[in-house]
């Protein structure tokens, strides 16, 4: 008779296909995980499930047309992408936009940042089972989207910027609507923090999970709140200000441990700082035009000129016809911006044609996500949603 205890206890590793259809992969991430029990021994992320050829499209669309593509890359903070592309194009062409344009862009970027962080913190919470915190933020995000709708006409596919300015000015009384939402943001941020910060389960689930060291953050090229949570004091808004960010007073939120909890804290603090920036931008909002047209054929003339004068109509055609207008200089330009998730920039190479020779996106999500397999190794399966949630991968931007 064989004694059971003498039999070798064989265990096999289980390969688990996490995604692309999975409740916590936020879009279309796929991770192939090797599990030992519930401990992840190896994780291989596979990207590309949302590849849409956005970069290639940049070679066929002119500078203003491509703006409509940029917001589709990022479904959490589309306006930041609009602005990032417009900045790069303006640098290439050499247009200096009006102060009012810059201030409105700052306002919109910061509102987007609030919306992004609210959703991200909420998603992190919902991935750990706390649905209520998520819905608190989600409801408010809806109000912010209403603000976008008032200004841009749409909620998500904003396409608000133009090369040389903005599609249109913000309407009268917009500041009141924004201030009302900002007050609400303050309250909801407090609510979420009350619900989560001191909750022991929340702390257990997020502290010491997915720790990124300072060195790793630098070597992987991680930027944004994720880098700041490791203690790196790097915020492009402060270090290399663009779009008049130097006019605003705000603090850069950093944390020291680099775990999921710290990334959450940094995001919550950034929401508060963004409220500050929004208020300042509304207070100091300069008057003036929102579109600068140096006669280079990038922006359409005002509509009443088009309809009421022959010169206006001719100019309108000049701009829109594929063989006229838009004669960008030969060259290349890149402007880094601080998008909610990190450094976002568009690298535009122009060969002097109406459409750029190449448009390359520097998406924060790709670099931030690249460290994921290192973070999850040795943690448990349950920590995977927490870490993915804290990275805030935007698949549209990741795969482009």
């Amino acid at each position, binding site marked *: 008779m064989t004694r059971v205890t003498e039999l070798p206890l064989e265990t096999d590793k*289980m390969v*688990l*296909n996490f995604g692309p259809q*999975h*409740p*916590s992969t936020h879009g279309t991430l796929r991770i192939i995980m090797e599990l030992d029990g*519930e401990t992840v021994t190896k994780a291989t992320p596979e990207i590309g499930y949302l590849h849409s050829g956005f970069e290639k499209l940049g070679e066929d669309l002119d500078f203003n047309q491509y703006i409509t593509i940029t917001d589709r890359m990022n479904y959490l903070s589309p306006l930041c992408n609009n602005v990032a592309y417009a900045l790069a194009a303006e640098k290439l062409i050499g247009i200096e936009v009006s102060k009012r344009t810059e201030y409105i862009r700052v306002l919109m970027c910061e509102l987007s940042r609030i919306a992004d962080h609210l959703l991200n913190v909420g998603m992190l*919470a*919902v*991935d*750990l*089972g*706390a*649905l*209520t915190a998520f*819905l*608190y933020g989600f*409801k408010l995000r809806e109000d912010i989207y209403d603000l976008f709708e008032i200004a841009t006409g749409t909620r998500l596919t904003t396409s608000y910027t133009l090369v040389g300015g903005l599609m249109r000015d913000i309407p009268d009384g917009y500041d009141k609507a924004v201030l009302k939402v900002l007050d609400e943001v303050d309250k909801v941020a407090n609510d979420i923090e009350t*619900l*989560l910060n001191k*909750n022991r*389960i*929340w702390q*257990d*689930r997020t502290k010491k999970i997915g720790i990124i060291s300072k060195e790793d953050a630098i070597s992987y090229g991680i930027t944004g709140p994720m880098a700041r949570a490791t203690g790196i004091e790097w915020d492009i808004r402060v270090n290399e200000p663009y779009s008049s960010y130097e006019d605003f007073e705000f603090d850069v939120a950093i944390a020291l441990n680099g775990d999921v909890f710290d990334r959450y804290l940094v995001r919550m603090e950034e929401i508060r700082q963004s409220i500050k920036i929004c208020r300042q931008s509304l207070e100091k909002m300069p008057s003036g035009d929102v579109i600068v047209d140096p006669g280079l054929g990038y922006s359409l003339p005002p509509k009443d000129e088009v309809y009421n004068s022959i010169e206006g109509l001719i100019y309108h055609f000049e701009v829109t016809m594929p063989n006229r207008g838009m004669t960008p200089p030969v060259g290349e330009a890149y402007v880094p911006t601080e998008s909610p998730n990190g450094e976002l920039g568009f690298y535009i190479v122009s060969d002097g044609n109406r459409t750029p020779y190449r448009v390359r996106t520097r998406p924060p999500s790709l670099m931030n996500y690249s460290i994921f397999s290192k973070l999850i190794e040795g943690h*448990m*399966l*349950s*920590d*995977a*949603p927490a870490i993915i949630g804290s990275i805030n991968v935007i698949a549209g931007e990741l795969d482009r």
Partner: protein
Amino acid sequence: MDFLGFIIILVKVLVVFAATMLTVLILIYAERRVSAFMQGRLGPNRVGPKGILQPIADGIKFLMKEEFIPAGVDKPIFILAPAILLIPALMTFAVIPFGSSITILGREIALQVADVNVGILYILALTSIGVYGIVLAGWSSNSKYSLLGGLRSSAQLISYELAMGLAVVSIILLSGSLKLNDIIADQQGYFLSWNVFKQPLAFVIFLVAVYAETNRLPFDLSEAEQELVGGYHTEYSSMKFAMFFMAEYANMITAAALTVTLFFGGWDFPLINETMLGNWGTALSVLAFILKMGFFLFLFIWVRWTFPRFRYDQLMKLGWKVMLPTALFNIFVTAGYLTIKSVV
């Protein structure tokens, strides 16, 4: 047993069964409305006035869904598993007294389906069987996510059931009986004679364990939508899925009723002697029972929509390193106190 007695028992069984199922429906509605209220939403409000017919619409939807059995499942177990979970969940309520006795035509009828003399053991045994439903569902589904859900469930079971059992032991020590009626009788009278005041530690342990028992957040590890998609019921559809759903709510009802019975004097209406008031006293006792149970059912919903979920190793740690030693300590203190009291 005479014929009338048989009829009475049959009626009681039917009434309790119907009441449980009705409460399940009410709970499903309540859960959706209360969570909506907490989250600033509206919740169901289309089917019937204020959406009260929503659970029925849900039920009809489940009935009309395609019954899908994936390839490669262990079919007999796959089909049996929801029943293994649901049936014990509905059976446990049988021994819980939901009111004092009622007198009809000179006949005294206890408001309890069966007065088993090992009532508590019966409940503990049946609730443990329910877990087999989850484990088998996860095992037979031929899906990795389901398997992980089932495994988690069994790990969860051994972590909390011991502490739960030991918390109950301290109550048994006080009342000196496993019979639920004796436990209630022990708590009769003054407000402070409820066990929750005599055994606060046991109450806390029991309450936590009961949340784990019912697979509710923060202990819904075997389901864990964001990690395991749907856990043990990922592959289930139609009425089989609905059975898991109903079992969860039926378990909640039993758990709430048990909490009330063990720690809050059961049907005891504070400061009133129900037996003196005849049938009116009985009505009062049933009302007291329903109110107390309603509170604990609300607490279930409240907790679910407030807390994040535990991680599986954290639950084990909580069960083995915190709850079990605390429960043992509690028994030690209780037994010591009783020994000293009996000597002095």
